[in-house]
């Protein structure tokens, strides 16, 4: 076995066998799945306690609208506010008091809710929806125009613009700017995370070898450059393994969870909430199933294979570009606490790249997006945002070409700093010093 593959093997196995790696690899998909499913599940839970609401209606015209149902019980009383308050001071059954002092058509602020605790939003929305709806209808009826209600209903519009992309074959694909944004941002963010996490691991690994003083033992057997590249490649493989595991596990999990919850989650709940929307705005919304189908048709419009391939390429390119520089920083310092000074110039462009990616998402063909997807220090992240929107092949080619040339350049540079740095002990390194090492 060649020496560099021995090093790669060691870097890979020691990391993959670590408990923290295994836990993170298996827990993260659970976390992802949880983030998606828990809110759905919570939404499906019903609050079974009955809300008891006293109503003091000075106008006596709303009793027919505010009807009790499973959740809300409206109790119309004719007492002063203070009396209700005092009577129910210790009554656990009492939820709130609705006071209507005037005709709501004339005075829209005439309704007030009193309660001992903060009134929850659901209750407030429920009551105000019912009252608004009723007042709206009363007002319409006041015009005395036959079929007016029907006409208003018909005149409401819900414009949902469908976006269709012409692909090269002249076929039409259902596109979605929102979905492109989501896919682009997720892949950009994952690349950002991987570069930062695994770049830092390279740096920590180098510092560790230096502080444990094993580095000189090893470079008496292998060239410093081999040691550095072995480490960088080994850790890249760890990153790819983790990514692959996440993809596989997340898809298995979401399929499993989906099939369970598909029956478990009440579609009624979703429909109910849709109906509430309808009540509020008087517009029909897609049923849950309809929107899922819609999402599927949009998803099929994306070339996921292409995006995944570019994801891996840009991840490797960006990682290689930064990892060697992180290795150089690690070699120049004596302990992990000293790394900050020199790693700042590395983390700044990465952070800048993620901001550039966020702004580029709004205008994926604008000058910021274009330039940042060419500059090698930002291109791996920014290009991922642009890709789902479609990028001309020549731009991808130039961007990748620059990226490859740059990481060869940075690796060469880092190698020079590295081979001097790892043998320097107990010396406070300055920028000037690093420059000197470069020219040895």
């Amino acid at each position, binding site marked *: 076995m060649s020496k560099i593959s*021995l090093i790669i093997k*060691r870097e890979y196995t020691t990391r993959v066998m670590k408990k923290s790696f295994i836990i993170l690899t298996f827990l993260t998909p659970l976390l992802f799945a949880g983030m998606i499913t828990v809110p759905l599940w919570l939404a499906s839970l019903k609050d079974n306690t009955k809300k008891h609401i006293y109503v003091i209606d000075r106008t006596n015209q709303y009793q027919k609208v505010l009807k009790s149902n499973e959740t809300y019980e409206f109790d119309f009383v004719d007492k002063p506010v203070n009396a209700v308050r005092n009577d129910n001071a210790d009554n656990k059954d009492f939820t709130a008091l609705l006071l209507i002092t005037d005709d709501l058509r004339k005075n829209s602020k005439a309704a007030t809710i009193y309660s001992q605790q903060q009134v929850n939003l659901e209750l407030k929305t429920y009551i105000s929806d019912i009252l608004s709806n009723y007042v709206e209808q009363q007002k319409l009826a006041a015009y005395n125009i036959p079929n007016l209600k029907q006409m208003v209903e018909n005149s409401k519009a819900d414009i949902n613009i469908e976006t269709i992309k012409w692909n090269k074959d002249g076929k039409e694909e259902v596109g979605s700017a929102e979905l492109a944004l989501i896919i682009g941002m997720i892949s950009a963010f994952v690349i950002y995370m991987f570069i930062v996490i695994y770049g830092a691991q390279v740096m920590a690994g180098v510092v560790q*070898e230096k502080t444990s003083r094993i580095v*000189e*033992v090893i470079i*008496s*057997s*292998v060239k410093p450059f081999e040691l550095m590249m072995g480490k960088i490649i080994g850790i890249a493989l760890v990153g790819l393994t983790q990514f692959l595991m996440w993809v596989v596990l997340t898809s298995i999990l979401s399929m499993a969870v989906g099939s369970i919850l598909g029956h478990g989650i009440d579609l009624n709940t979703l429909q109910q909430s849709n109906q509430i929307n309808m009540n509020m705005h008087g517009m029909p919304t897609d049923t849950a199933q309809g929107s899922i189908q819609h999402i599927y048709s949009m998803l099929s419009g994306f070339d996921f294979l292409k995006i995944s391939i570019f994801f891996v390429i840009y991840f490797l390119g960006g990682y290689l570009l930064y990892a060697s520089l992180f290795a150089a920083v690690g070699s120049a310092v004596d302990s992990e606490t000293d790394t900050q000074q020199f790693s700042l110039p590395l983390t700044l462009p990465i952070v800048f790249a993620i901001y550039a990616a966020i702004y580029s998402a709004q205008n994926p063909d604008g000058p910021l997006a274009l330039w940042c997807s060419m500059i090698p220090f930002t291109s791996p992240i920014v290009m991922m945002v642009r890709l789902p929107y479609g990028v001309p092949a020549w731009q991808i080619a130039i961007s990748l070409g620059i990226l490859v040339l740059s990481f060869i350049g940075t690796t060469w540079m880092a190698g020079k700093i590295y081979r001097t740095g790892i*043998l320097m002990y107990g010396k406070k390194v300055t920028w000037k010093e690093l420059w000197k090492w470069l020219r040895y």
Partner: protein
Amino acid sequence: MILLEVENVVKQFAGHLALDNVSLTVPENSIYGLLGPNGAGKTTLIRIINCITAPDSGEVRLNGKKMTTAEVQQIGYLPEERGLYKKMKVGEQALYLAQLKGMSRQDALKALKYWFEKFEIQAWWDKKVEELSKGMAQKVQFITTILHNPKLLIFDEPFSGFDPVNADLMKREILELRNNGATIIFSTHNMGTVEDLCENISLVNQAKIVLQGNVAEIRANHATKTFLVRSENSITGNNFELLSQTEKDGIFETKIKKMNTGSNNLLLKELIQQTEIHTFEELLPGMNDIFIETVKP
């Protein structure tokens, strides 16, 4: 037979000269000492021999051949700054380091078994290095250095950090390795070990070799013509200067310095005529004195 030749090696670091035209030859199957104060350039020289650093000019040859990867693999190097991966298991790590030196897995396992048994440390195989004491870790380190049966062994300050028991063990192992055919270079500050172990030395000071040669010859050359005499009665004479005289249990111990260039026998003859002589011994300077005298600015 000469194993290692270093010829006119020059190494310049930014701003200072680390090695100035250094040459030395190490005979096969001998123990060679590389001495010198801190910062003299010893470690740089050792790194150049190991091909870790490249010399600006000059050449290093092993068995007459210029150093290449194949030559470097015949060297076992224990650096002054040494350590092991703390989180890695002892056996696994030793195996890894041996494979990096070009050994096959099987050979490495076999050799490791031999050495672990010899040092009675088989029980450490599955322990992590961080669980070992410093002395234990150094034993492991020593084994990984000599495991691939190198022709040339280079130890940079091998005894620093060893407790006396382990230091003695290492000393014995080094001698045994020599007896089994290995050639050993070590750099040290410990002049006692130099006198015990080394046949030849080079003394490096301020990037230059200031003293080089056979230890016995060097000491003889630095002889100060001082003698220790134990006798029944006190001694006097014109040919020597009395340095000190003490009496204990009826035996006089006298240090004298010979004034002329006459032979030692002539001096002894003069003393024998005076009284009963128990001991007559030339006091050779220790390497420590020679070191200090040579290096002194």
